[in-house]
């Protein structure tokens, strides 16, 4: 039996209300049969210091990335990871995390690569749960491993590689980094480690819409009307547009990918996870510097 949806009126305004649950809902439903709760954080130890009762940890680096090739894990490894957390193909997977749910959105996006159907985010993530004084525990649940099928990873619908971006010119690109990264003044997020991009700037023709525009101060997503004003209004995205979003390593753009796809209902949005760390190091790709978008080069 599928796990009930969160009927919150705020979510009903979004294109896909089934993709979000509130902390209130989670407090009531965390133990529902068929629901698996995952915490996905930037800080690899944060889960161990205390997590929502019943939650299991999933880590972007150590669980979802291939340890050798610079890519996500393949089908066999994903089946093993999911199975080890008691997830079946029919499970309702609910994900939350630190830092405005960046890494939670990233994990959700990776589940999407494998076509997992029912995967949801907790609006506001870990920060909101903690701010509300809700229970945390260091007890790690005992998991009964499940059989997760080996399914093909289908990147094409939601993932853009560098070549896809080059072929995409003339269609909307959204750069979700800070204005300083966009203009090329700096190559890493303010207060973040330098991850080694040789060039600064942005992909020509990309609109600058920092990810944080979509988030409220309590880490929840802004309401439908505000989001429409930002992305359909200011950024000029139109229904039916194919859109590619990118950032520096793909985590902040997962947040925007979630907003565009699940909250605003754009049907052809891809996340360029190679993002600036790849583009800013690649040989012979066009780059624009300064605050102006720049013209779209010819697609190639």
């Amino acid at each position: 039996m599928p796990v009930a949806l969160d009927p919150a009126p705020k979510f009903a305004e979004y294109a896909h209300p089934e993709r979000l649950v509130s902390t209130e809902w989670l407090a009531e439903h965390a133990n529902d049969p068929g629901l698996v709760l995952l915490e996905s954080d930037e800080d690899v130890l944060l889960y161990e210091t205390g997590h929502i009762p019943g939650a299991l940890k999933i880590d972007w680096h150590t669980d979802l990335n291939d340890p050798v090739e610079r890519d996500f894990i393949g089908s066999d490894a994903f089946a093993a990871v999911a199975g080890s957390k008691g997830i079946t193909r029919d499970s309702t997977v609910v994900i939350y995390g630190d830092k405005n749910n960046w890494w939670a959105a990233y994990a959700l996006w990776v589940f999407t690569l494998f076509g997992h159907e029912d995967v949801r985010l907790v609006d506001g993530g870990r920060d909101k749960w903690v701010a509300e004084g809700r229970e945390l525990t260091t007890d790690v649940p005992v998991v009964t491993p499940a059989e997760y099928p080996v399914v093909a990873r289908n990147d094409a619908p939601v993932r853009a590689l560098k070549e896809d971006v080059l072929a995409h010119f003339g269609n909307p690109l959204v750069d979700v980094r800070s204005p300083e990264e966009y203009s090329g003044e700096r190559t890493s997020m303010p207060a973040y480690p330098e991850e080694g991009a040789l060039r600064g700037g942005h992909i020509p023709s990309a609109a600058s819409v920092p990810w944080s525009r979509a988030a409220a101060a309590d880490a929840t997503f802004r309401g439908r009307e505000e989001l429409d004003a930002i992305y359909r209004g200011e950024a000029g995205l139109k229904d039916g547009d194919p859109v590619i979003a990118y950032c520096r390593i793909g985590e902040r753009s997962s947040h925007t990918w979630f907003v565009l796809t699940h909250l605003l209902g754009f049907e052809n949005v891809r996340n360029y996870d190679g993002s600036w760390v790849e583009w800013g190091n690649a040989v012979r790709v066009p780059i624009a510097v300064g605050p102006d978008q720049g013209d779209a080069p010819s697609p190639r």
Partner: protein
Amino acid sequence: MTDELPERLAEIRDDFLALEQNDRLQLLLEFSNELPELPARYQDHPDLFERVVECQSPVYIFVEVDDDTGVHLFATAPRESPTTRGFASILAQGLDGLSAEEVLAVPDDFPQTIGLTQAVSPLRIRGMSALLARTKRQLRERSAA
């Protein structure tokens, strides 16, 4: 080369390397919990502290050099950043009481040698490398002054 590591740092490295990957995270968490509060004499002196901007969370360090008791590294990092706290705690404990020369001689790649790159990821380890580098830079500035 590794034999030249100061004794306490070598112990810390060996403790990590003796553990399975998952247990290494637990040990890092123990270090994180052990990061001492600032001594009273420094609590009202944020001006002395330097932000380690390479870390993904607000972490600040100050290196004290005492003629009698050697080098002491003090650090603050928020509770929500246990990994960074763990890194700072390893260095604070591992370097404590060494001479400035001994600290400067610690290999820059020490963070990569303690068996955490797989459990924590190479990207995150960079925060610890930055902590070590800034500690050394403060010492160099101190001795040049």
